[in-house]
Structures are given as structure tokens and as C-alpha cells.
């Protein structure tokens, strides 16, 4: 299986269960992966790069232990996500009584997923105040998720295994949504469509031609192909018309759909998982 720094741990585990032991052997923090509850909580949210940071290992070390299990490592630029050196102004200006401190370490040790409670507590945080998550590693998936909703965050390293991550609710922050609102359907110009298409290399593209199929086979064929679509893959579809009933059907799933209407009876589509 081809992997890169952005591959989620859960995908590795699904491909080969021995990867759990392999990764856990790399460092003490990564031993947490052997805990099934913690693995369930973290594995689908954490990428290899993030796991490396948590375990303070390098991607090379990961590659070494994973190669014998059949994983082929592909070089892809990793995002540098380090703890910022200087605390931001909003944190400086925040008095301690305006911060809700939540130590999640006991939760995790007991085997519970603290996410629901974290989100509930964050909802209660007033504008201009913050929630501080105390944990033994940087909760990168949480940071990513909340930053999507324009929440400001900052992680402070207190000790080698103690991190304080502050989540600040600015005055005009958007209401929190548990999930991004379903599928994004965009109708592109030829140029834009081609640019988006060019972002994928040929190994990532799965092509489907449904033009010769009789109704309702085009829709059915596309729907059957979607569950097998990996996170980094894209479905490129040749169609006779915009399949509106299909779009409605996947409207509440996390896909991005690009449509290009070349002609009255010539439509191209790109479908991929939302980032």
C-alpha cells in the first residue's frame, strides 16, 4: 500500500494490523496506539506526520518499520506544524478566570473519548474567553477541526509530556458545527476544472464512463464506486447530463463535486473526499 505523511493511521491499520505494533515500538508516546479505545479515538484522525510529532520520531524511522509490512513510502511535502514560539496577543490578554481548564489525560487513560465533552465545554465558552486542553501530546486533530471554524489556538509546552492547548473564542466567531455541512457542489469553468484536474496525478484518478448506460444505471454505478474511493483519489466521470438526483443523494456526505458542462449532452465530473 502506498502511503505518505498525510495518510491516516487508521488506513495503515486497515491494510495491515501489524502496523500497530510496528508504530508503537518506535517510542513511548506511540505505545498508546496499542490501547484499542485510544486507537479508535485517534487513528482515524491522526496522520503519519502528526503521529511522528506525537512520538517525537522522524518519518524515516516510520518508513523503516513500515516497509517490511508492505507499505511503500512516497515523498510528499509535510506541513510543518510546530508549537509557535511566542504566545499570541489574545492569550497574553486573557486572564486566568476567563479560561476553562480541562485536563483530558484521565479520560484517555480510562479509555474514554473526550471529544464530545470537549466540544460541549467549548460551546459553553463565552466570546472573548478560552478553553484550555491539558494533555500529554498536542491534540492536532482537535486543533485542525476547530481551526476550520475560525477558532484561534495556541499550544504551550509545559513539560516533555504536558501540553496546554488554548482554544480562543474570538468576539465574532461562527457558530460551531459538529461537521462541515455536507457535499460541496461547484460548477466550474473549463479552465478552473482543468486546473483542479491537474492537481491529481494519474495514479489517483479513477475514470468512469456512464454515457452508454441506461437509466438509472449511471447513478447506481457512480454510487457503487464512491465507498471504495480513497481519501487521495478522485472519481473522474463522463456523463451525458448533470445527474441531479445523484447530487441530491450525496448532498449530506463529505464530498466535493466539480461539474463541467461542455455541451448540451456532454458533462464531466470530479468527485473526491472533502479535505
Amino acid at each position, binding site marked *: 500500500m502506498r502511503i505518505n505523511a498525510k495518510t491516516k493511521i487508521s488506513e495503515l491499520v486497515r491494510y495491515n494490523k501489524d502496523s500497530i505494533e510496528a508504530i508503537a515500538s518506535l517510542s513511548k508516546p506511540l505505545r498508546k496506539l496499542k490501547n484499542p479505545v485510544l486507537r479508535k479515538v485517534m487513528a482515524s484522525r491522526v496522520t503519519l506526520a502528526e503521529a511522528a510529532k506525537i512520538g517525537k520520531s522522524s518519518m524515516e524511522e516510520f518508513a523503516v518499520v513500515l516497509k517490511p509490512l508492505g507499505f511503500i513510502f512516497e515523498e510528499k511535502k509535510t506541513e510543518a506544524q510546530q508549537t509557535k514560539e511566542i504566545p499570541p496577543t489574545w492569550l497574553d490578554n486573557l486572564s486566568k478566570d476567563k479560561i476553562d481548564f480541562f485536563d483530558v489525560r484521565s479520560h484517555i487513560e480510562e479509555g474514554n473519548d473526550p471529544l464530545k465533552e470537549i466540544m460541549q465545554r467549548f460551546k459553553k465558552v463565552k466570546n472573548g474567553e478560552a478553553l484550555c486542553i491539558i494533555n500529554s501530546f498536542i491534540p492536532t486533530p482537535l486543533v485542525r477541526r476547530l481551526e476550520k471554524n475560525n477558532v484561534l489556538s495556541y499550544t504551550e509546552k509545559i513539560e516533555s509530556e504536558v501540553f496546554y492547548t488554548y482554544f480562543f473564542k474570538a468576539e465574532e466567531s*461562527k457558530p460551531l458545527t459538529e461537521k*462541515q*455541512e455536507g457535499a*460541496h*457542489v*461547484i*460548477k*466550474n*469553468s473549463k479552465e*478552473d476544472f482543468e486546473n483542479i484536474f491537474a492537481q491529481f496525478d494519474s495514479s489517483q484518478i479513477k475514470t468512469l464512463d456512464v454515457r452508454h448506460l441506461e*437509466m*438509472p*444505471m449511471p*447513478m*447506481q454505478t457512480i*454510487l*457503487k464506486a464512491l465507498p471504495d474511493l480513497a481519501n487521495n483519489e478522485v472519481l473522474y466521470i463522463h456523463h*451525458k447530463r*448533470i445527474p*441531479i*438526483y*445523484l*447530487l*441530491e*443523494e450525496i*448532498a449530506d456526505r463529505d464530498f466535493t463535486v466539480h*461539474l463541467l*458542462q461542455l455541451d*448540451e*449532452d456532454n458533462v464531466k465530473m470530479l468527485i473526491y473526499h472533502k479535505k
Partner: protein
Amino acid sequence: MNPAIGNTPKEYAVVPFYATAAVVFFIFTLLMFIAAPQFAAHYFHGKTLALVHTAALGWATMIIFGAAYQLLPVIFERNLYSSILALASYFFLLAGSILLIFSFWYFFLSWGMISGGISVIVAVLLYCFNVFKTADFKKNKLNIQNYFIISSALYLLITCTIGLLLVINLAYPFFNISHLEILKLHAHLGIVGWFLQLITGISVRLVPMFLLSKSNKSHLLSLSFIFQNVGILGFTLDRYFTGSPARSTLYLILVGVGIFYWLFYLRDTYKNRLKRKVEVQMKFAFISFGFLIASLFVALLILNFSDIQWSTLYGTFIFLGWISAIILGKTFKTLPFIIWNTRYKTLHGKMKLPMPKDLYIEQWIHYQYKLFVAAMLLLTIGIVSNILLIIKAGLFLWILIATLYIINIFKILFHKKQLTDGTSNNRSTLP
């Protein structure tokens, strides 16, 4: 360049029908309320005939024409033969309906009835012409599903022709058979020949599409076609030539068997579906089938007992319980798509497109459904026990249903192009 493979027809060939039908439906519920006492009286009364034809022509046939012009290209995979003729049929149907309904309501004005009848027939001829020219009669292309659509068009023509003869007979009697007997034939040719077969034909193409499903049991459809047609034609010809009601139950059973074969086909489609969610539009479809089957039983009652409330109940089940329910559900699976298509056809940008579902208020369809169930319950009880107050309560709920429906329809029709950036800020962009 590929030959035309079934592109959406022009908006003006479809939208006027939907808009007008919604308005007529609303007026219809008001008229029903005003004429509530009619629900306790015999059906051969000016106001009752006016109500029936408001529902049959101004509401049901009107919207079916619109839906048919939109869907014929999809069903036959060819362009609609003529959008202009479709629009012309709209004007003739509208004029004819208004004249007929008006004339019936005000005690049979002969000039109004006859000119109205002629106008309706012209509309129907235009419709039939469009259907035949759009249909692909090449042997391998014409499958059993499409037979229903073509035969229903013919039945509509026959029904309306007999209708015209009936109104002429009212003004200048020439029938040597009882007027009421011919009226029964006219009504059933319309109900079984036009409505039932049209609904069968369209549903067996659309339901698989909505449910993301497929059925291979087309033999069920062939059987359905045979039984439905033998039933209605047998009934018509037998009654006309022998005047005897003796075999009516037999024909009722034949039609009933035809209906069941159709429903079994749909059930097979349902079982193979990929779509898991049961939408409210489907609930309307299910309950409409319930009322259709119930109508069969009420028809049995009519054949055996002559109490007039069974006839009223029969008409109520057919026009309100069955036909209106289907329309109330299916409108929102057809109209939003054509509006969406035409509004966003040439539009493109980097922003997120709204979905057809965003063009109307889905929640209101749920309210519509609950009101519908309550209304039909009240009407049934009221008609059977002949209590006017309960009938009026049920009819009042129908006014509420029509209000929700018409507002939702116009929300769709007046939808303005917009693209959103996925946040709550709506920004309108135009190419």
C-alpha cells in the same frame, strides 16, 4: 453532433402548468369548502360537477401535462417534439377548464360548456400530437413502460370526446341511453384510462430513478397493462352495448389485478433500492396507493349498495386521497429540478451550488403530510356518517394544505440564481 437525446424542454412549456395548477388547487380547496353541503348530496349536481372538473382538469390534468412535457424527453430519450405546441395546449386547457367549471357551477350554461369542451379537446389533441411525435416507435426502443403513456393519451382524448358529447346532450338531448350511464363510462375512462395508466407509466420510469434502483420484472408491467385495459374497455363496451351492470364487479376485479401487478413491480424496485432514506415524498406515494386500493373496495360497495355517500367517498378517495396525494409528493421531485436546471445551466463559478432541495422548504412538506392524513380521516368519517361539521373540518384542513403547497411552489418559481461560499453569507453572482 449527436442527435437530440432528450434535453430539457423550454421552461415555458412546463412552468405555466405547474404555476396554474397550484393556483387552481388552492381555489379548488376554497370551492370545496364553500360547497361542503354537496358532499352529502347526489353527485349529479352543477356544483359537484364543477368541483370534479376543477380537480380533474384544472389541477390534475394541468400539472400532469406540465410534468409529462418535462419527462417525455427523459422517458423516450428524445427531445420534446415542440415546446410551442406544448404552450399552446396550456392556453386551450386553461380556457377550456375555466369555461367548463364556470358553466357547471352556474347550472349548465350550454354555450360555456360546449365551447369549454371543444377547447379542452384541442388542448388534448395538441398533447397527443406531442406525445406521438416524441415517442420512439422503433421496435427495440418501445418498451412496455412506454405503452402506458401512449395509451393514456388516447384514453384522455376519448374521455374528453365523450365529455363533449355529454355536454351537448345536456343542451340538445340526442342520446338514446341514459345520460348518467354514459357519465359513468366517461368518468371511468378518465380515471382508469387516463389517470391510472399515465400514473403507472410515469411511476415505473421515475420511481427507480428516485430510489436509485432497478427491476427486471417487466412481465409484471405487461400483465398490468393487459388487465387494466381489458378491465376498462370491457366495462365500457359491455355497459354501452348491453346496458347491464351485471359484470361490473368482474371488470372491477380485472382493473384491480392490473393495479396490483403494477404495485408489485414498484415493490420489486423498492426492494432493490440503493437509497436508504425514506423521504416524505415517498410517504405521500405510499398513502396514495393505500387510497387507490381503498377506492376499489368503495367501488365494490357502490356496486352493491346504492347509498349516495359511497359515490361521494369514492370520488373523494380517488381525487383527494390518490391523485392529489401523488401530486403533492411528486411535485417536489420534478419542478425544483427543472428550475434548478434552467437557472444554473449557464452559470459557473468557484462557489458552491445550491441543491434543488434548497429551492423550497422541505419542512412544510412534512406539515402537508400530517395535515393530509388528518384531513382524509375527517372527511372519511364525515362523509360516511353524513355529518357536515366534520366534513367542513376536513375541507378546512385541505385549504391549509393548499396554502402551504402554493407558497412552496412560488418559492421555487421565483428562485433567484445564487451561489454561496458555504457560509451563511449568501452572495449572488451572475456570469
